[in-house]
């Protein structure tokens, strides 16, 4: 049977969907991208992800898979010729641990730091920097989290590569500085420069404008 792969994703600024685009392209899988209007979700999306009603959703031969990190694991297992996860169980465990760390802890403490009122900001920034330091130490001086090439954790860390730089400019709060996090900053440069990532990642200036508009009420109230 001819393979049918579809990706239901958000528009260009939707970073979780970009994770899957990058992974599919790196794995060499042909797919159709279906852009979802998140203000007006299609009946198909609501059917394929009836529980969370979110993107991204991968549809492989009619079978839906939801949640970006779960989709990355599925891609790794289904098309094993170009694996994105390390082969060694311990290295895999570390990759999974840090991906969850980014999604469940780092993003939230950083968001707190970006949006805190002046009087609370010092503490929030300190906490976010502490968490960034942990990730900086994990990367050490490796070229990528995956070693010589981009892997699962690099793809998961797209949030660090894109969202932090954008938020810094919009909110005028510095977190990810070269002085404090040289390894991470160098990683960001290398990661966004990879051909496949470049294809998929939105331009920073475009994102900054978009987020400024999205947060205009919040920014006005500050």
């Amino acid at each position, binding site marked *: 049977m001819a393979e049918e792969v579809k990706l239901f994703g958000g528009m260009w600024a939707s970073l979780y969907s970009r994770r899957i685009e990058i992974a599919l392209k790196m794995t060499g899988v042909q797919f159709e991208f279906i852009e979802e209007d998140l203000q007006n979700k299609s009946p198909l999306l609501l059917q394929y992800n009836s*529980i969370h009603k979110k993107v991204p959703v991968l549809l492989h031969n009619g079978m839906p*898979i939801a949640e970006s990190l779960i989709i990355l694991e599925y891609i790794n297992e*289904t098309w094993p010729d170009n694996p994105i996860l390390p082969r060694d*169980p*311990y290295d*895999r*465990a570390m990759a*999974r641990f840090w991906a969850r760390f980014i999604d469940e802890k780092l993003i939230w403490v950083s968001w707190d730091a970006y949006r805190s009122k002046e009087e609370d900001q010092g503490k929030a920034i300190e906490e976010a920097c502490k968490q960034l330091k942990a990730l900086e130490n994990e990367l050490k001086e490796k070229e990528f989290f995956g070693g010589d090439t981009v892997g699962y954790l690099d793809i998961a860390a797209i949030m660090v590569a894109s969202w932090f730089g954008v938020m810094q400019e919009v909110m005028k709060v510095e977190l990810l500085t070269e002085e404090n996090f040289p390894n991470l900053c160098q990683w960001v440069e290398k990661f966004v420069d990879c051909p496949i990532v470049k294809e998929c990642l939105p331009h920073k200036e475009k994102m900054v404008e978009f987020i400024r508009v999205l947060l205009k009420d919040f920014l006005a109230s500050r």
Partner: protein
Amino acid sequence: MAEENKVKLHGMWASPYVQRVEIALKIKGIPYEYVEEDLVNKSQLLLQYNPVHKKVPVLIHNGKSICESLVILEYIDETWKNGPPLLPQDPYKRAKVRFWTSFVEKELLENVLLVVRSEGEAQEKAIKVVFEKLKLLEEGLKDLFQGETHHIDGENMGILDIFLCSLFGAHKAQEEVLGVKFIDPEKFPLLSSWVTAFTEVAVVKALQPPHEKLVVVYQFLRQKALQPSAAEVEVKEGVYVRSLSRSHLPDTLI
């Protein structure tokens, strides 16, 4: 056991997260040394092994530490391939199991804890959310099994069974303390029969703290959340919870 292959688990007897790992280790027949952590006075070792979250469970294997129960379970499954598998072979089934495990962790557990920690209108709201999530899970289980009977025993408990067990193994204690019956066979027949099945599994039975102790734990969690003076409770926690310990477990399992 050679030092390099030694397996250690740092845990705390009342922690459902730790229970998940112990069930997995026992199902796979992996011998391990258990180290009870005092969560009020965390050991230097724990802080060294889990500097990011400073929590249990932590698994030590070949001198390296692995943290977060789901990450540990997948590590166990990939490292010890001889025992029963914790995940199906088929990638699509694996994705579905991972999806529902994530749902139990994030949507169900969080909201059950909210019920424990709240009262009045806030609690009523939280209870309603739990029932909504349980309904979704019941439907999800039907889809997962596609009409086949899922027979659970010590040989085939997987990560979803383990996660559900760690949450609802204590359902009777939850019922007693909260006054609400989550595992209702009339509302959720599939889920209820499943919960009954895995609480009968020998490994689970042996690891499950006795009902009275679980009641105390839930009462304590509730008091801690609802009492205004948290500081006072912090001190009590160390003494009170520590004193309960793992004395309910037979020596051979410790």
